[in-house]
């Protein structure tokens, strides 16, 4: 008998997973999920302070996708005629004008981020807020501390064969194209015309903190501007109560959020929900609308240090 076949047959009649063990294992996974999303003591204290901003977000959350064309004051008529692509170009110009706001991080440093999250449930308008502070090792060689919905996670350094993609390391990002067409190609990952992948990757670019080399952030917005199907969702207010305008892609949960007046990038919009798998798909209930505002970023030398 062929040796590989013999190995394949060895222990082939092993006992299958019992329902009991499956249930216990799923319960363990659920515990891990709940532990992660349960707000820690820190965010509970902060919740009071941020309640006001949260209320503002709640007021608009239900109507985010509905255009409020012409109904707003100060500059709204101008905004009403702005296309998603035009908005992105303005955002690109804005970030170019801002110039090098951040110092170039060394691989052994940390990116500090403070994110304000406001989540409003669609059904009853309940609002939850978190202020998350994270310290991410720039090249992944050091342990990182990540706060998610209030809970602190200590992430070990990347393993020998683990990488972050898109990269977080400045030296790697410096090799990325700053020409919007080339960058779009990169974000499509070689899949010709795969617009959804490109949009998803562009979102990723901002969801995970990184310091962009000059021109890359602007090029990202311009690359997104070239994606057919992007659209504007007006009337968004970010978690800090700033007037925002979102750029989204059909049937994708994450959207970019920009300041209505300055076109500065504010953060991300997320439409989500808690749910459970039914027939291999997630059946969502308890839908919510979440605004993740980039409140502060900086480069520091160690975990716990603030810029």
């Amino acid at each position, binding site marked *: 008998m062929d040796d590989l076949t013999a190995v*394949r047959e060895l222990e082939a009649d092993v*006992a299958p997973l019992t329902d009991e063990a499956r249930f216990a294992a799923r319960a*363990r996974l659920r515990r891990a*999920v709940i532990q992660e999303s349960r707000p820690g003591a820190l965010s509970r204290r902060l919740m009071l302070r941020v309640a006001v901003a949260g209320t503002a977000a709640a007021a608009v959350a239900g109507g985010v996708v509905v255009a409020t064309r012409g109904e707003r004051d100060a500059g709204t008529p101008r905004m009403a005629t702005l296309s998603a692509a035009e908005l992105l170009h303005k955002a690109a110009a804005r970030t170019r004008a801002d110039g090098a706001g951040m110092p170039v991080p060394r691989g052994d440093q940390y990116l500090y981020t403070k994110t304000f999250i406001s989540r409003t449930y669609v059904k009853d308008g309940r609002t939850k807020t978190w202020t998350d502070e994270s310290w991410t090792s720039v090249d992944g060689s050091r342990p990182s501390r990540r706060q998610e919905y209030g809970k602190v996670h200590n992430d070990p350094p990347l393993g020998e064969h683990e990488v972050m993609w898109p990269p*977080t390391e400045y030296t790697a990002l410096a090799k990325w194209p700053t020409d919007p067409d080339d960058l779009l190609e990169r974000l499509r990952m070689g899949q010709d015309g795969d617009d*959804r*992948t490109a949009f998803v990757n562009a979102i990723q670019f901002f969801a995970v903190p990184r310091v962009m080399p000059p021109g890359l952030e602007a090029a990202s917005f311009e690359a997104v501007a070239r994606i057919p199907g992007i659209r504007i969702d007006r009337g968004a207010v970010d978690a800090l109560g700033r007037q925002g305008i979102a750029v989204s892609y059909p049937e994708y949960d994450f959207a970019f959020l920009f300041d209505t007046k300055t076109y500065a990038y504010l953060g991300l919009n997320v439409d989500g929900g808690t749910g459970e798998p039914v027939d291999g798909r997630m059946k969502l209930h308890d839908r919510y609308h*979440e605004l993740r505002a980039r409140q502060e970023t900086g480069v520091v030398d160690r975990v716990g240090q603030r810029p």
Partner: protein
Amino acid sequence: MKSTGDPCVGDRPAVARHDDVPSDASVVERSWAEPDAFELLFHRYADDIHRYVARRLGPEAADDLMAETFVVAFQQRRRYDLTRPHARPWLYGIVSNLVGQHRRAEARRLRALSRVAATGSGDGGEALADRVAARVSAERTRAELAGALAKLPARYRDVLLVIAWGDLDYAEAAEALGIPVGTVRSRLHRARTRLREALGGSDPTALHEETEETGRG
């Protein structure tokens, strides 16, 4: 860390296109904002991973390590390389690490398997119907195989078993174990050579040189 450049570009799409069933990568990505979504991966692969551990360490250990695999995977989901549409190799990488912490238990199990079968061959003293003889012969093969597996260096056994039992291809095995594809090929080749020697007994002395290695690499 290895270059974080873009070796994956042009390789595979990051997430499913808008098909009915979302890819593993898109499930992982979704779970970033909606941790509950991760349960989909559990539904897809719990049986698979459990069976793999059960074959390596036995059913009781499998109950525990399968559960642990998904908890670890969940906690590490932000490191998932979204350019990989299938999560199986990633999960096999995690479970291989966990199994690696139980090398002694695995060796004990394999030695027990080789002994059970070896005593089984003693039944041959009774009436030797052909059927019984065939069974005895199969059991002897099993015993020799288990014995040979026990003697394989751990790094060879990992490669051999994620391929033979985990049904990973070479590229997936490389991804799971974090080694180059060339190394997968050479380790598999060496593992199979040793198994053939053990089964065919062409050079029994060769086996004695292989004491079990606990190191990885």
